[in-house]
């Protein structure tokens, strides 16, 4: 199709975001279950609620952030719009809309994946089986990514797919970093203690970055090194810098190869973001990690809004009836 409908561009962008979100959620649940439990017990389940700003919503229906309640909330709870089931459901619904555009394999996989999830009972997400459940989610999402990479026609649609995916990924990385940082005890005695290291360890693992980190930092693990790695390391596909690079490439492609006029304004927001990232971890710590992450998120958000307005048709254009 030579002219991509704005509505389709929007559906592609969000399909990619939903799948990325589901995958990241599975990573976070998996790592919390596997690597964090012996430190402070059930406390860690509460931290996931903070990570996604979901505590108010969660406590409307639950009294306590027990493992079982939090896990259910984020996995199979169809009333929670940010559960894995909801995210895959929305991705599938977008894929259904996009069927004229995407490959049959892309649609079929999401359709089967969603139907399989929907058929799961509570025993499938009980703590002993959670790791298996998370593997299944990660595999499902990665299968989607692989099929998309291998079958999705490379035109404007592909650019929007990548924009959605990379923006979501950058957002997830900053959230995880911020949340873990917040949970690090502020008392200097505890920094570098067993609890502390296990948290940073978990953070790296949830982003599948532990082994990559070890390549660069064979010994030791300081919060600054981990944060620097997750923010700036360009070889790490989940670092904010790598995601923003990819966003830049796709926006450039939309503007110069596909002559999409709206990409220009988004490029402006991207330049702001790049300027912000043009520093190193020492500069960040001086500025304050939390404050810095906050600003990165604001800029990511501003870029998303700009893409939504100018490229995906969220605001009425000059000609709309």
């Amino acid at each position, binding site marked *: *199709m030579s*002219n*991509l*409908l*704005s*509505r389709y*561009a929007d559906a592609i962008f969000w399909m990619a975001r939903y799948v990325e979100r589901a995958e990241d959620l599975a990573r976070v649940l998996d790592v919390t279950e596997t690597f964090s439990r012996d430190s402070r017990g059930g406390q860690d389940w509460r931290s996931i609620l903070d990570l996604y700003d979901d505590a108010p919503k969660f406590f409307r229906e639950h009294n306590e952030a027990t493992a079982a309640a939090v896990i259910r909330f984020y996995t199979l709870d169809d009333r929670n719009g940010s559960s894995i089931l909801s995210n895959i459901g929305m991705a599938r*619904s977008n894929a*259904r*809309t996009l*069927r*004229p555009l995407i490959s*049959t394999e892309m*649609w*079929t996989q999401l*359709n*089967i994946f969603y*139907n399989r999830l929907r058929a799961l009972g509570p025993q499938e997400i009980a703590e002993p089986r959670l790791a298996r459940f998370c593997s299944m989610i990660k595999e499902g999402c990665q299968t989607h990514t692989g099929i998309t990479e291998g079958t999705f026609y490379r035109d*404007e649609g592909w650019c929007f797919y990548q924009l959605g995916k990379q923006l979501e990924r950058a957002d997830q990385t900053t959230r995880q970093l911020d949340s873990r940082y917040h949970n690090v005890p502020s008392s200097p005695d505890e920094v570098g203690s067993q609890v502390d290291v296990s948290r940073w360890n978990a953070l790296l693992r949830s982003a599948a970055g532990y082994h990559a980190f070890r390549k660069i930092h064979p010994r030791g693990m300081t919060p600054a090194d981990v944060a620097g790695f997750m923010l700036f390391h360009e070889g790490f596909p989940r670092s904010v810098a790598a995601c923003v690079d990819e966003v830049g490439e796709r926006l450039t492609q*939309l503007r110069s190869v*596909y*002559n*999409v*006029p*709206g990409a220009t304004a988004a490029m402006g927001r991207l330049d702001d973001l790049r300027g912000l990232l043009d520093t190193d971890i020492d500069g960040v710590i001086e500025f304050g990690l939390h404050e810095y992450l906050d600003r990165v998120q604001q800029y990511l958000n501003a870029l998303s809004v700009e893409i939504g307005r100018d*490229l*995906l*048709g969220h605001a009425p*254009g000059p*000609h*709309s*009836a």
Partner: protein
Amino acid sequence: MNEVAERTGLLADYDAGGRYCEMFGPPGMQAPVPHTEALRERLTRMSLEDLRERAHDAELELYNFGITFTVYTQKDAIDRILPFDAIPRPIPPDEWQTLESGVRQRVTAINRFLRDVYHERHVFSDRIVPPDVVFSNPNYRPEMEGLEVPFDTYAHIDGSDLIRDDDGTFYVLEDNARCPSGVSYMVENRHLMLRTFPDLIEDQPVRSVSNYGQRLRAALGEIAPQGIDDPTVVLLSPGTYNSAYFEHIFLAREMGVALVEGRDLVTENDRVFVKTIRGLQPVHVIYRRINDDALDPRAFNPDSLLGVPGLFQAYRKGNVALANAIGTGVADDKALYAYMPRLIRYYLDEDPILPNVQTNLCREHEGLQYTLDHLDELVVKPVGEAGGYGITVGPHATKEELEHCRQQILDRPHNWISQPMINLSVAPTLVDGGIEPRHVDLRAFAVTGRDTWVAPGGLSRVALRKGSLIVNSSQGGGSKDTWVLE
């Protein structure tokens, strides 16, 4: 058993029960019809378990591919497949030739009639059809009066429902000249057959139906506004919640055109545009799968959110073509149906190639009296409904149902017709108890731009419930791959 010929394997116990069978031919024949021999032989080599297992795989594939229609309940959206029966329904070349020319003749007459109704109206002055049959039909669109359409084609996409009586004669049961659906199943059933039963279809002289999308795209290109060499065609759908959404996807993909919803289109200076990431782009032809009254809230139902404000004005000005044209619903009404043989003679000076089922119009005194006198023998249908709703099958109805039906007819006679019970032919069908006869019909699809093309195949719908004559998907029907043989 009617057939004398020996049977082994899968079809050994099959008994068509005195009905005309699509696989074995008329009852009482000495030997089964020869054109199905190769198919029968291949089926014979298959075990029931194998057939069942592969039929199951085929249905699973439909589900996984999302070749489904959606049923909405208060709580859930349930994706249902149209059950696929693995045993194909063959049609021999000579029979097809008759069906093809019969459908073409019918479509030609329908288009001539529509042209006449919205322009010269000779059909009324020559007393062929009483005017109120047309003007009392809510699908009559006065907005179309005097409006020219390319090639005088109104029903670009038409579906003819064909049935076969015990003696093997094909009849036209119904014309569908508005938004006939089902063509995606014609093609997908064939693809499914090729994937899951390659050994059944391999080397059989079955005519291909897979170019339907290209034929349709070509016809839609022909009706583009004058001076547009490379028209932009779109398919306008009510959206993902429509039960036929899969078919819309299918057709958009097959034609390589954009699948749009009303909110994707805008009008400006009586032209239609689609909202793209590069701004508004012109649209020249719309294959619309939404009803007339929902097309344009400015011209028709003001409450419709599915349509495009200003679309009708753009259409009037000839800046955009619509397929089907607006107002075709006056031609596929069950009351007008009764006049079709007369219309064919009137417009084409030919005898109908495919007969109508004899139809009694309750609007006429004679028809009403006959219907009321023979209620328990007749099939009574409301004129305006589709999808098998509101039908009373006299011989199968209880006393209460017949009484209810009588009351309904007496309340609004012009709303009802009756027809003799046609038994419908059967075809061997895989059901829980093995392979048994089930009633089938056939929907044939015609595409008309400059000329009419009839797809060499169709949708064979099968009533999966034993003895049932109602094949509609909403009433427990399934479908079969239809093999038009060369």
